[in-house]
């Protein structure tokens, strides 16, 4: 796109990596932290001084061998209790990709953290213990991944060393998952890999103990799963974040609409509509600082100028004139409730949707979803911490939106409690 990037690629290709975000859910018992520790360790992302501090902590906690799980526990209380409480972010890179892991605790009381980790992930990595097979929490993690519209699931059958690396055990779990879980998911791309995180089998290096498995290792999967087609490139959306007005002599009449492209492809010269005003114009320029672009697509942060001087401000959306988003004050959405204080009908809440702040009233609870079974409950009318429900709400102004299934950015919003300002609800528009 620019001469600068050409300059970059001369330096051995390491500037040209794709970024993959994945989430892992599970408890210490499935060996999730050990698996992450192993990925980081075998891809050389754990450094000597970190290793030393892990060794020190392992000894202090009475462990005999180095506990790779301690890599992922950040806070003192987490290390002491041996549990992960909050989402932790980890980073590693191979020559092919850079990875961001959102590592979340797996118990049901941490559903909100799983939802948080899943909200920005391309891939969900789900662990089962080879001895136990598919459990309630396996289903829960899978359903959450599906609810959040993650497009790829990797099911790692871990602790294969404890079932003597037997192929039958692995095939049985795989079949059980396909028959009883995968059939209920919106996820089309599901991969399976038998591993031993503790011993490193099929994590980075091929297992010597499971010659019957001829597929890719976990790392090879993560390096090659194709994600470029996952984003919406059909309906062009630019939620306006900020209006750039230099007000100096050189850029006297400059008005730039700054934002991050949330969907579709904008091209210089395209006809666009500013909403909610409905005024139309054509794209005069697309810029990232001094650099002029011909096209812009997600997730680039750009500044756009228009041919006509129309009134556009933060909270508005510039969209392709050929595909307008929906507009309504009556919204139906799936909510994950994040607060210990239950959702209150008839109470006013704040809403943050893209760059638009407004208010809402919750008017109806349609049903509650049992995240372990996917059963719908139309009777119960209370929504508390970690509950997932379909709700209806009325907003003070029209929302400009797409369904979450079509666009994760323009189809999502958060609910904020007035007074405490806490984020209490995560919503996906139906």
């Amino acid at each position: 796109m620019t001469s600068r990037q050409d300059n970059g690629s001369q330096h051995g290709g390491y500037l040209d990596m794709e970024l993959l975000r994945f989430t892992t859910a599970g408890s210490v018992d499935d060996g999730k932290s050990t698996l992450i520790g192993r990925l980081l360790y075998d891809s050389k992302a754990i450094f000597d001084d970190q290793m030393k501090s892990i060794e020190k902590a392992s000894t202090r906690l009475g462990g005999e061998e180095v506990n790779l799980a301690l890599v992922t526990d950040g806070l003192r209380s987490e290390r002491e209790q041996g549990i992960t409480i909050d989402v932790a972010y980890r980073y590693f890179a191979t020559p092919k990709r850079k990875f961001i892991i959102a590592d979340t605790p797996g118990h049901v009381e941490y559903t909100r953290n799983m939802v948080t980790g899943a909200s920005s992930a391309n891939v969900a990595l789900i662990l089962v213990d080879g001895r136990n097979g598919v459990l309630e929490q396996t289903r829960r993690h899978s359903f959450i991944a599906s609810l959040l519209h993650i497009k790829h699931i990797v099911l790692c059958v871990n602790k294969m060393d404890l079932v003597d690396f037997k192929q039958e055990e692995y095939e049985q779990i795989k079949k059980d998952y396909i028959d009883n879980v995968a059939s209920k998911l919106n996820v089309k791309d599901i991969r399976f890999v038998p591993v031993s995180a503790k011993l490193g089998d099929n994590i980075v290096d091929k297992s010597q103990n499971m010659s019957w498995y001829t597929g890719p290792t976990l790392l090879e999967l993560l390096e090659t799963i194709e994600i470029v087609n996952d984003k919406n490139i059909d309906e062009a959306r630019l939620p306006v974040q900020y209006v750039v007005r230099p007000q100096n002599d050189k850029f006297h009449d400059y008005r730039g609409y700054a934002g991050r492209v949330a969907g579709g492809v904008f091209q210089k010269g395209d006809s666009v509509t500013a909403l909610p005003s409905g005024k139309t114009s054509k794209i005069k320029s697309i810029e990232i600082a001094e650099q002029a672009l011909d096209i812009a697509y997600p997730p680039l942060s750009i500044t756009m100028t228009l041919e006509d001087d129309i009134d556009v401000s933060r909270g508005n959306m510039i969209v392709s004139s050929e595909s307008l988003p929906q507009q309504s004050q009556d919204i139906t959405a799936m909510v994950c409730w994040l607060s210990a204080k239950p959702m209150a009908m008839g109470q006013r809440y704040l809403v943050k949707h893209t760059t638009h702040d407004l208010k809402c009233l919750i008017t109806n609870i349609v049903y509650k979803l049992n995240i372990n079974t996917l059963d719908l409950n139309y009777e119960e009318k209370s929504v508390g911490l970690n509950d997932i429900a379909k709700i209806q709400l009325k907003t003070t102004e029209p929302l400009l939106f797409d369904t979450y299934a079509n666009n994760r950015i323009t189809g999502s919003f958060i609910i904020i409690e007035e007074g405490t300002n806490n984020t209490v609800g995560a919503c996906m528009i139906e």
Partner: protein
Amino acid sequence: MNNYTVKHLQELEAESIYVLREVASQFENPVMLFSGGKDSIVMFHLARKAFYPAKMPFTLMHIDTGHNFQETIEFRDQLIAENGVTLIAAMVQESIDKGRVVEEQGPDASRNMLQTTTLLDAITEHKFDCAMGGGRRDEEKARAKERFFSHRDVFGQWDPKNQRPELWNIFNGKKNMGEHFRVFPISNWTEMDVWQYILQEEIEMPSIYYTHRRKVFNRNGQWLAWAPFMQLKENEKVEELDVRCRTIGDITCTGLTLSKATSLEDIIQEVAATRITERGGRADDQRSESAMEDRKREGYF
């Protein structure tokens, strides 16, 4: 397969610019903390790009221990002069003179801990409602749990077990009177990403990131820069060696790396090959297993 791929540096840049624009929109009086180190220089560069061709709508602030590498201060002053931005230097020495903090004594004394008080006092004095920092989650295990938008109570404290969930790219910066936010626009960058980006964008850096001959001494296996206010212990002797900084902090706690790196390419090679984390050379983090967590709870960067 479509052609709309983005590379990791493009995606990180886009994310950081988005965060910086959210700060400008959601807060009334945000300040950018600027130490003159590589992370704050990259954050500054991103802010310049985010608001171009307008000036960035932020004041800069340096929490100055007075124990600086001279090269960093010269670089800082030149950068603000060239970009026409305002910088406040909040002096730890003033906090000491006013009796707000008591200076540590002895050869291991550092003003690192004292910066928290100076920072919180400056935030109160200037009525800043948001302070942006160049902290990255890959730096340290407590930082791995940090949000992009991190809420601070009226005492400036961080409550890591009670943080607001952060979903998609929606950032909730709502707060009550007297509270403020810390925002970390480059949360998702690693040390390697920062150097690759500096190379890609051809960003000018302070000279001490490159190899140079300097008077140094060894303490507990770390090379520290000698300066007139550094007290040597018995058996410590000053030598002249070829070193460079991997991080830049207060001179009393910044470990130097023996290095011959003269270019950004050399530095990237070195970062790729190293087996020690960047903060492994920071005496301030070595004090205990949870040194960073404890300082952050109190209101440290």
